[in-house]
């Protein structure tokens, strides 16, 4: 497979009446964007705002983040979801690099997910560095949370595709070519390099807790081997609304950091032989089956090493250590990426579900770390949600209006696919 990412670097964004990029400045056709979102008759209203790095702007509650793109010469959108199914991973994509669609929609009152564009909050989310086109979607009355989630999920995808039209004829700043042949071809090229797989665990549990591959609900599959480029070409989307700090947003699927970094080593130090989804189910039997199956697939494909990334906190911790010990017992070396809960003061035992085999673990941060969010000049979304973010303990709202929140509430803060640079150090 050969995938080309044509990058168009975005240095600023303005609202206007046409989609275009000139000298790195992205203009968004506001009315066109609204119309694209409103094509669903379940959308009652849509508001569009901008949030730029450094501005004292807070976005809350964030539903999803999506990268605006144009798929050249192919169906333009998300195969199997917003367009007809089409094989992804082979072809050319023009990308508005540095821009992001951020959707807002509160399906349930306790929803978290904050992006601060400045100050301490900005340090803890990767999406404070992107030029964000914030799309606030209000559905018609009477929808249950299921329907509401679907409406906002799809609206965000359509919005990203609409804005992505600006990439169709924009000047390309850089082209990145990704190419991996069949197993046999790569093996012949790199007979001495260790074979490495990437196991991506995904929350697949129901309302507000889903992930889709070509539109297929991951709850309904057993672990599947897929080509890393499919994910980099819009085949995977997020249906997750909780787990703000450690869910994988659609943007992070489109730009899976582990896939990028593994590809970087392909042909040099490793032979990167693909990705596997391992859905995180709710029942123990389901977990046993998927963890076993996942380890079996890795073994069958002849992997020497595997990186496993988690999504979420709580019951997925069980899957993570089960997959790890099953792989290690088969003689396959692992490195895990997970976040931890070591308490406010960092003195709690970080991992609860432990296995002696989990010897190589990257910690993507402590979900209970408390950070201070200064008062914002502008809140995009729902001010009440901003209060919900904190509100969980005594003294979390200071007199000057600043909030104390746990990293839990911050989008992408402790990304378990390693999309952020948080870590934990022992003192």
């Amino acid at each position, binding site marked *: 497979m050969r995938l080309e990412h044509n990058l168009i670097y975005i240095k600023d964004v303005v609202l206007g009446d046409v989609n275009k990029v000139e000298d790195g400045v992205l203009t968004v056709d506001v009315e066109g964007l609204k119309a694209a979102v409103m094509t669903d008759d379940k959308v009652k209203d849509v508001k569009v705002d901008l949030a730029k790095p450094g501005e004292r702007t807070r976005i809350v509650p964030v539903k999803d983040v999506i990268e605006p793109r144009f798929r050249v010469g192919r169906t333009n959108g998300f195969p199997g979801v917003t367009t007809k199914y089409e094989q992804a991973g082979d072809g050319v994509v023009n990308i508005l690099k540095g821009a992001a669609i951020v959707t807002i929609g509160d399906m349930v009152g306790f*929803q978290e997910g904050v992006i601060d564009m400045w100050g301490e909050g900005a340090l803890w989310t990767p999406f404070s560095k992107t030029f964000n086109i914030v799309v606030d979607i209000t559905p018609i009355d009477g929808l249950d949370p299921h329907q509401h989630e679907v409406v906002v999920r799809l609206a965000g995808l359509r919005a990203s595709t609409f804005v992505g039209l600006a990439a169709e004829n924009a000047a390309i700043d850089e082209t990145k070519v990704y190419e991996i042949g069949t197993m046999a071809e790569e093996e012949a090229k790199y007979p001495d390099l260790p074979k490495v797989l990437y196991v991506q665990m995904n*929350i697949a549990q129901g309302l507000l807790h889903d992930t889709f591959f070509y539109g297929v609900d991951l709850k309904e599959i057993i672990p599947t081997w897929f080509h890393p480029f499919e994910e980099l070409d819009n085949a995977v989307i997020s249906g997750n609304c909780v787990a703000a700090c450690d869910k994988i947003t659609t943007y992070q699927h489109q730009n899976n950091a582990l896939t990028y970094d593994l590809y970087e080593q392909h042909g040099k130090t490793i032979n990167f032989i693909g990705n596997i989804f391992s859905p995180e189910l*709710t029942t*123990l039997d389901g977990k046993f089956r998927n963890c076993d199956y996942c380890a079996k697939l890795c073994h069958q494909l002849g992997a020497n090493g595997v990186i496993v990334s988690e999504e*979420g906190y*709580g*019951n997925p911790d069980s899957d993570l250590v089960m997959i790890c010990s099953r792989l290690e017992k088969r003689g396959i070396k692992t490195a895990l990426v997970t976040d931890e809960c070591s308490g*406010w003061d960092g003195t709690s035992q970080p991992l609860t579900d432990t296995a002696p085999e989990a010897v190589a673990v990257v910690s993507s941060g402590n979900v209970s770390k408390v950070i201070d969010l200064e008062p914002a000049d502008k809140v995009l979304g729902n001010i009440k949600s901003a209060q919900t973010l904190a509100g*969980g303990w005594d003294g979390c709202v200071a007199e000057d209006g600043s909030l104390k929140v746990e990293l839990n*509430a911050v989008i992408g803060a402790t990304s378990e696919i390693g999309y952020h640079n948080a870590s934990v150090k022992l003192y």
Partner: protein
Amino acid sequence: MVFVEGTFRDVLIKVRDMVHTGYELISHPLFASSRMMFSPYRTVVLGSKRDVSPQIECQIIEDSIISYDKLTARRNPQPEHNGDYAKVDLSLYEATLEEISMLRSSHTV
């Protein structure tokens, strides 16, 4: 069906007592996200009672209680969200039932 009058933690304790006395632990006691740990409601599916509880089930419920305590140590309840938490818990419970039926019953007539 056992209704526990109390908190999420009380449910976990009840589940622990039942698992330790042999009831099969069918669904994982925790949710998959840190935010849902603050839910006042939790539905856990248990099976029939056996003579011996497998170690893995005991381990999972014990670990779940520790995880729960760590994450919720400093939190106060936010009753204004109870209705929404109940909705999500119910919906995830329904998904679990579907998962169970896919796992077990699809081949029974």
